[in-house]
């Protein structure tokens, strides 16, 4: 046999070996690509086990092919893949980003597909249903809420002579707890803080949001521009400044994984349900409670994860993708417990995996606070206005006021000017 012929046979055989598994997959199963932002080794691995369960159980031959990305990277990748005409079939992100991607033409209205796949949102609170619609059409189906609430270190609470079964419900009670748990040594050095409260970053912004709505304010006015120069905003920021100045706060930066509460050197912190797993894993003796009411009405920050379909060149995989979403929403209990998010579908909340789990006690206040949860406005320029980046006029001015570099009035005036500039930028 000539050397050339032998070479051709080897090449063809290798090509066949490489292509055959793909051909078999193409024949027996249909891939549904899914992009999500639940990163971190535990979350990605856990989610993969949930997807594996779907891949094994479903009778339609569907196979979820997940891609996990950090949230910032997800927004970038979603935009880039959409621009290249190759976005994932399903994307799982937050309701607050939906409007932006709908206006970019990336997301698909799904009312017809929901009916075809039999998606039933009965029992989901109406305010959450409304969040999922734009111009009356469903774009992103809600899976969970993850409101910000209060955590406290039971050991430090008890050491301060407080009752861990009666956590604070008002601003006054909160401050009493914070003061009781703040310890200063003989040299005047604070060795333990009452509260691990951040001046910036996500936790700083979300606490301001919480206070803004508790004092009756909102981010935007009727003119669509920033309303952060309101009396409510003034009272909210003034409260944060006074909290920082009171000496009970750790004054963290808002970035980084380790803070005073995590290290057992602060009595309280306000953060979302996703920290439950982390605190349990670290062996902390902790409790959780509904966000205290510092202002006039109960309210707390929240966001929601939702699942959306992207616009594709062909509609052949839309129904398959919607079937994946339906299954995932109905089986949200396990991700809910393990990621630390509260499912919104009644069928998931009634799942024994959720109700009987040892962590249910920690999640109970989060379920309770769904009624007072308020999202940031899902505006078209959400990722610009509510960015965690250094350009953010929101964070810059929150930090400046708390550092005493600007008065509350100056900070709010500058914040409004900066946000308005972003909103009006063509």
């Amino acid at each position: 046999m000539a050397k050339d012929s032998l070479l051709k046979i080897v090449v063809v055989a290798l090509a066949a070996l490489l292509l055959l598994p793909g051909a078999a997959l193409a024949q027996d199963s249909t891939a549904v690509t899914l992009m999500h932002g639940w990163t971190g080794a535990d979350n990605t691995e856990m989610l993969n086990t949930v997807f594996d369960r779907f891949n094994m159980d479903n009778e339609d031959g569907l196979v979820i092919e997940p891609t996990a990305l950090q949230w910032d990277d997800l927004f970038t990748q979603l935009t880039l893949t959409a621009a290249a005409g190759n976005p994932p079939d399903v994307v799982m992100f937050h309701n607050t980003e939906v409007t932006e991607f709908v206006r970019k033409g990336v997301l698909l209205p799904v009312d017809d597909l929901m009916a075809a796949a039999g998606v039933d949102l009965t029992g989901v609170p109406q305010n959450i249903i409304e969040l999922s619609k734009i111009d009356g059409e469903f774009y992103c189906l809600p899976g969970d809420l993850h409101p910000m609430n209060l955590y406290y270190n039971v050991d430090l609470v008890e050491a301060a002579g407080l009752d861990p079964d009666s956590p604070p419900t008002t601003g006054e009670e909160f401050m009493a707890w914070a003061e009781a748990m703040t310890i200063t040594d003989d040299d005047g050095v604070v060795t333990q803080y009452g509260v691990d409260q951040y001046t910036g970053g996500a936790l700083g912004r979300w606490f301001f949001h919480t206070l803004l709505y508790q004092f009756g304010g909102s981010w935007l006015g009727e003119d669509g521009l920033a309303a952060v120069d309101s009396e409510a905003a003034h009272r909210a920021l003034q409260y944060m400044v006074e909290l920082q100045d009171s000496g009970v706060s750790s004054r963290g930066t808002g970035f980084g994984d380790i803070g005073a509460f995590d290290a057992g050197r602060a009595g309280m912190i306000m953060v979302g349900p996703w920290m439950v797993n982390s605190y349990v894993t670290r062996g902390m003796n902790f409790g959780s409670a509904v966000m205290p009411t510092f202002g006039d009405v109960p309210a707390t920050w929240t966001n929601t994860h939702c699942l959306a379909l992207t616009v594709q060149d062909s509609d052949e995989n839309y129904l398959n993708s919607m079937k994946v979403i339906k299954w995932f929403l109905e089986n949200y209990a396990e991700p809910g417990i393990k990621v630390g998010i509260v499912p919104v579908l009644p069928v998931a909340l009634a799942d024994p995996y959720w109700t009987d789990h040892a962590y249910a006690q920690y999640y109970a206040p989060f379920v309770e606070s769904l009624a007072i949860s308020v999202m940031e406005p899902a505006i078209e320029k959400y990722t610009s206005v509510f960015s965690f980046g250094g350009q953010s006029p929101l964070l810059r001015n929150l930090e400046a006021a708390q550092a005493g570099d600007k008065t509350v009035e100056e900070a709010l005036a500058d914040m409004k000017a900066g946000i308005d500039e972003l909103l009006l930028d063509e």
Partner: protein
Amino acid sequence: MSSATTPKEKRATSSWNSIKNDLIAYAFMAPYLFLFIVFLLLPAFVGVYASFTKWGIIGEPKWRGLRNYTKLLNSEIFIESLQNTLYFVVLAAIPLIVLGFLLALLVNQKLRGRNITRAIVFLPHVVSVAAVGIIFQWILERSVGLLNYYLGLLGVYPPINWLGDPDSAMPAIAITTIWWTVNGNMIIYLAGLQDIPEDLYEAAKIDGAGRWQELRFVTIPMLMPVNAFVIPLTVIACWRVFGQVFVMTRGGPQGSTFTVAQFIYETAFVKFDMGVASAAGVILMLITLSFTIVQLRAMKVI
């Protein structure tokens, strides 16, 4: 009968050999050149074009002329990012060069444990920027950080909010950067030191030179070619600082660590304004180019 080669034929053969050598050289360079052209040069040209357009990645770019540039030059935040980056260059570049040189001198000594010392000093260089950022976040944390703990033992109180105070955040990032990358310069200087012929030092000794005079009249002049490499690269790297800032402060507090590279990133991939981001990139390129030319001129390299 031997055939005599005419001068014309000799020239032709020589010319063909030269071309053949060139082709071989280009063949060796081809894989790198291909990647360089596809992933750096062409995108750079597209970036320059994009800087004159309005483009949100999705859709077609629309011509805007110089409006992106005028917008940037009137943007307080962009100017602030330039000032912050210049501050970082001053804080980090000089120590990176000087300490890199001094460390190279140190590990070039014929001392016991020299190789282990070299490995230890070089070790941070192999750590990823994300890990470096997180480690230093923990070290510099205000209430439970390692640095404030030891400063507290020395009586420093109240604790310094390294990453939360606009005055200390950029120096903290510069210190992190120096710890992380100074060893890269050290290795280059070390290679330069080992290239200096020993007989120069012997000649200097015969002329009565002491250690300081050897350093001044032999080592430093002989390292000028290395300086011509290290100094511009270090300054350029400092102008492009991004990862440490992104992980440790995201440009805060109050924008005090917000650098040009972060401005470009946020404008491109958060605001999806590729035109303005590209224009900022072009300006950054022009700045680093100017710095490099001035430095090389001052060193009489060009």
